[in-house]
Each structure stands twice: as structure tokens, then as C-alpha cells.
């Protein structure tokens, strides 16, 4: 992605003074002594690769489970009581479309295409899922009075019933990983993106 790479050196004899100073500033920033360790780590492309692989695989796998059995997913979504049942098209469309968003986003991350957009969508989805799980756990707690961490239900992720605390921690971990594709400036190990 062309906007991510800075010119290697200030273009000699170029007309605009601002362009030259931009080039110089970028060169200075690229100087390894000035870049933070985090940025240098990012430059290797490895954190991004790991994040892409983990988040991508998780999303693809769980999306496939939901696509394979949409009726079960519909039943689980209803239990969260987040999507209104009137009109029914709202929850039905969610069941039909959401798993494909997850599948596409997971696939894009694995391929290394549209990395930032995928990271952004994944981050939003994970936050929404975590809120949903937490709210539902609160509801169960209000009804049954169990300790929050002992409550378990089918989160609809495709893995069956799971303890709430474990699910929140897992999603939190994925969320942190999702920030890498969202903020990384590296594009190593990614497919070349068409310049738009």
C-alpha cells in the first residue's frame, strides 16, 4: 500500500520545499535510532502475520460452523435478546449475513488483503460479541443467582456451551490481536493491494 511507505531519501532537486521536508522527516523517522522498539517490531511484519493467522483462522472456522447450520445459529441469537424479533427480518438477515462477514474478514486477513478494514470490522464484532455475552450473563445471574464466572451457555460462536469468563478472556485476547492489523504499518507477507 503506497501510502504506508515513505520515500527512502529526500528527492534531490525536487521542486516543492514541503515535499523535501516531508521526505527528510520520513527519513529521520526511519532512522533506526529514532524509531520505537514497537515500530521496529512491526516493521518485521511478524506480529502482523501472527495476528492475521490467528484471528483469520478463528473467524473462518467459526463462520463455517454458523453457515453450516443457520437454524441453530438463529436459535442461539434469539437467546441473547439483543436483536428485536419484530420485524422478523432483522434477526433473519443477521443470521444470513453475519457469518459471511466473518468468513470474508477472516479470509481477507489470511490473505493479507484490506488488512486495516478487516481489522476494524473484527474489532467491532469482537466488542459487540463481548458486550452481548456479558449482558446475557448478567441476565442469567439475575435469574439464577450464580457467580458470574460459573455461568456457561452456548455463545453462538460455533464451539458449543462455554463458560462466560473464559469466553470474555478469549475474545479480549482476539481483540488485542485485532488491533495489530488495524494499526500496523507493515505489509510484509501480504498480498499486494491494488492501488485505488
Amino acid at each position, binding site marked *: 500500500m503506497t501510502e504506508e511507505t515513505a520515500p527512502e531519501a529526500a528527492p534531490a532537486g525536487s521542486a516543492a520545499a514541503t515535499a523535501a521536508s516531508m521526505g527528510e522527516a520520513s527519513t529521520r523517522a526511519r532512522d533506526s535510532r529514532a524509531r520505537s522498539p514497537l515500530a521496529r517490531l512491526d516493521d518485521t511484519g511478524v506480529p502482523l502475520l501472527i495476528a492475521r493467522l490467528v484471528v483469520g483462522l478463528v473467524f473462518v472456522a467459526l463462520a463455517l460452523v454458523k453457515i453450516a447450520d443457520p437454524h441453530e445459529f438463529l436459535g442461539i441469537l434469539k437467546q441473547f435478546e439483543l436483536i428485536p424479533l419484530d420485524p422478523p427480518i432483522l434477526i433473519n438477515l443477521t443470521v444470513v449475513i453475519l457469518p459471511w*462477514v466473518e*468468513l470474508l474478514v477472516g479470509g481477507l486477513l489470511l490473505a493479507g488483503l484490506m488488512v486495516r478494514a478487516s481489522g476494524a470490522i473484527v474489532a467491532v464484532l469482537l466488542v459487540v460479541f463481548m458486550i452481548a455475552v456479558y449482558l446475557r450473563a448478567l441476565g442469567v445471574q439475575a435469574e439464577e443467582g450464580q457467580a458470574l464466572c460459573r455461568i456457561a451457555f452456548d455463545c453462538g460462536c460455533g464451539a458449543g456451551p462455554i463458560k462466560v469468563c473464559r469466553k470474555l478472556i478469549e475474545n479480549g485476547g482476539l481483540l488485542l490481536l485485532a488491533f495489530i492489523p488495524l494499526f500496523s504499518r507493515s505489509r510484509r507477507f501480504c498480498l499486494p493491494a491494488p492501488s485505488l
Partner: protein
Amino acid sequence: MDTRLKKSPIRLLLNILLIVGLASLCGLTWNLAAGKDRHVRLTRDYFTARHLISGADPSNPPATPSGAGTGVTPGNDTATEPNRGGGEERPGDPPPEGESMALKHGLQLITLEELQAYLEDPEGMAVVDARDRDHYEDGHIPGAYYLNRYQVDDLIEGIREELELAFMIIVYCNGGDCEDSIELASEVVGSFGIPSESVYVFEAGMEAWEAAGLPVVKGAGRD
């Protein structure tokens, strides 16, 4: 100022919209192309049972197949007849904690013992399995009809006659938290005009049937 950086947030937004749009297209196409057991009808309300709760009248509990009750549910003062929400535990009874979901929806219950009697004399009774094809084929109650509650529109024509002739239609799913039987009962009564007095929910479900060691039929055939 570098113009490429300025376009960045817009490009991000456009990419996001592109992904969501493409996914919507894929999802809708897939849904259209999917076989009947995976198709979701977009405008159909798959949760009609929720309408039953507001209409249920707690002071007039529905009739149960046998006259004897097992006891009065603690806290259910308004009931004039004993119902099966609590009382002594028997194998096949719905879980004692909390009220029966079926009763909350104003539906009639049937116990394991009464259902066992069905095996002996099935005349005029129809047992209906509300679960999906995999669960049905893994093991169902002998003689039960397959009526996956998400595919009632497609499946009901095949068995409508038998349902209309039966004086007892018993609906079941897995048991425990499973609400498929309640939803199916609501469908059968609401959308297909079967009188609600004929419909009974076997709330304890397949779990209890198998736990009692009763015969189970595997595969796609009823028997």
C-alpha cells in the same frame, strides 16, 4: 500535507462498506441456493411462541391428560388445579427448579409415563419430533414424525392429515433447556390450525426417554 494520508480514513470506510456489501451479497445468495434444511425465510417469524406468554391466563391452567396431579407448585397460588411445575420428582418430569416453560406458554404437558402408554396403544396419537434431521436420525421415539420446527412450512403437508385426525399430538425435542418443542407446538396451533387442546409438550424430551432406557429408532424411518 500529503494527500494520500487525508484519503485514508475515507478509504478505510469504503473498504469496510465493500466488505460488508460483498458479504451481504454472498450470504443472501447462499441462503437462496441452500437446501430446504438450511434455508432461512427472511420474512418469517420463527419465534411465534413468545406471543403465547402474554396471552396465558395463570388462573386457568390447561387440562392435563390424567386427572391426578403431582402436587402444587410452590408460589403458584393462583392455580386452581394442581399442575406439574413442581412437587415430587419422578423420572421424566420436567426439571424441578423454576416453572415449566411449556406451562408458562399456556401449553399442556405430558409425562414420560403417559408417553410410554402411547407405545402400548398409539391409536389416535401422533408423536412429533421438533429437532433437526441429524438429531432425528441419531435416535427418535418410535413412530415419531419428523417435523423440524424450522421447516414446518415444507414438512407439514406430508403429515397434516394425520395431525388433524389425532386427538393427541405430542411434541418433543431434546429436553432440558430446549425450546424447540414449545415453538413447534405454537406453530402447529397458531399457523396450522390444530386445536390447542390436542397438543401436548413432552418437556422432559429425548434425554429423559433415553435415560429411561426406552426403545429408540435410528435413521430416517419412523419405526
